[in-house]
């Protein structure tokens, strides 16, 4: 249930990125900026759902420290960094840089998502968590 929901959210974020990349490639900068805003919002909201709701609940069972959840949070920081750099490149109307950060963002995010979908969310499903409550709380998280 958590796994399906979060996996779908990954796909929804992907779907926001692809048209953004198209606008950058076509150097339609206004359009690119217009598409960048909801894309960034969706990504940050997704990270917030994990960092504020799902991960703390999992850590109650798995403990904090250097484990898998810590690695996921570090990757969130890397990805946030790329998204910011992407935004700056779009504002600077630098096609090469923007496509470059876009590519980096995409693969970084995809391998991150894959680890979550194949390992972390599977763990979440197997832990004795109150899944419905977690789902409800995650849906309430606001993007920023």
């Amino acid at each position, binding site marked *: 249930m958590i796994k399906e929901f979060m996996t779908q959210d990954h796909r929804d974020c*992907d*779907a926001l*990125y*692809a048209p953004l*990349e*198209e606008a950058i*490639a076509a150097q339609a900068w206004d359009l690119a900026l217009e598409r960048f805003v909801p894309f960034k919002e969706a990504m940050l909201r997704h990270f917030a759902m994990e960092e504020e709701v799902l991960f703390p609940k999992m850590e109650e069972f*798995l403990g904090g420290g250097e*484990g*898998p959840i810590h*690695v*996921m949070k*570090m*990757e969130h920081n*890397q990805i946030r*960094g790329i998204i910011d*750099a992407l935004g700056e490149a779009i504002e600077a109307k630098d096609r*090469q*840089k923007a*496509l*470059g*950060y876009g*590519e*980096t963002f*995409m*693969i*970084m995010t*995809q*391998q991150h*998502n*894959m*680890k979550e979908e*194949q*390992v*972390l969310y*599977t*763990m979440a499903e*197997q832990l004795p968590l109150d899944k419905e409550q977690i789902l409800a709380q995650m849906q309430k998280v606001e993007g920023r």
Partner: protein
Amino acid sequence: MFDGVSLDQAPPFEAPLLFFLTAPLFAIVGSILLEYGAGEFAILHAFSIGFLAFIMVGALLQMLPVVVGVKFERPKRVALLFWLPLVGGTLALIATLGFGQLSLALFAAATLLLALGGFALVTLVKLFKAPRKSDAVIAMILALLSLLLATLLGGHLLAALARGKELSLLPLHGALAGFGWVGLLIVGVSYQVIPMFYITQELPAIVRRPLAPAIFAALLSYALFQEEWLFKVVDGLFLLFALATFWRLFQRKRTVKEPTVAFFQVAMIFLAATALYGLFHGHDWRYLVAFGYGFAMSVVYGMLYKIIPFLVWFHLSSRGFFDIPTMRELISERLAWLHLYIHLASLSLLLTTTKSAAPLILAENLLFLWIIKAPILLYFRYKKRPSPFATST
């Protein structure tokens, strides 16, 4: 409950890189053997083990920790432990098959068994422990089982050669190595990387789920009963995979034109053509060339042009370096397109006049090394610097 599961960041870049850099060198050796008319089986194995198996072992070392959360302890040492006998064994096999050095046959068998058989076994044990077995992982398991069987059969062939006995089970070895190991591994890896590189949908479950087990079952039945039509079933299944994957690539969400997706598309076209050729014509040397050079090697180049710059970027940025060039700046797109054209030219020569392809194959792999030089040098240049994380904390 989750013993052995780690979401560690990727293993050190040096481990897969050692294999990725050896592969084009063996392709160059292959092109020289081709130019000087060495035995066809020596040339075949310079490419099938020297190029393809090196890349695939490297890619699995890289991918398994990320994909299934199984990791190798001390990855650099493990990599070297497989790499050394693999290099020695491949060279000895080339000497045995190409230059009649039968005294090396048993050495080749032993080292290759150690390297490839050992790698297959160790990895299989790890994969069986994976918390969840996706269709991609199942395909990889079947590929590694095929590798194990093919290597054992290869050892059996070498033992027969050394003792001057007649070779038995030859077609079986070729089928399991080529279509079981190489073919199924690419199926598994494609399931994994194509959706993530190009944002495509996965293949429909009714194709994705049964495909690899069906190919494996057809190959094994071919092995047991030696009926030609069973091999055509294998062709039919690869045709299905090629068409479905090509269709997914056609529908991909990322529409920006770039060379790596073209390499994948070329690969799928050649796989479909190979399968049709096998279905309606037969399984001769052209079939092997189209499958190995047209399909498998195209996938490899396309994949490496994504994976290498990503890994460089990933490892450096994990260490806190953010002033590095982006992935697209690390690989010259113009030269990668040029590579694709040379690749297509070498392929068409290989399929027609064969021997005249040698200089182009040489050029293609030198160009490949030249293209990946920039990201690799960048990696080692930054590696020497202290991490900004270390100074700030």
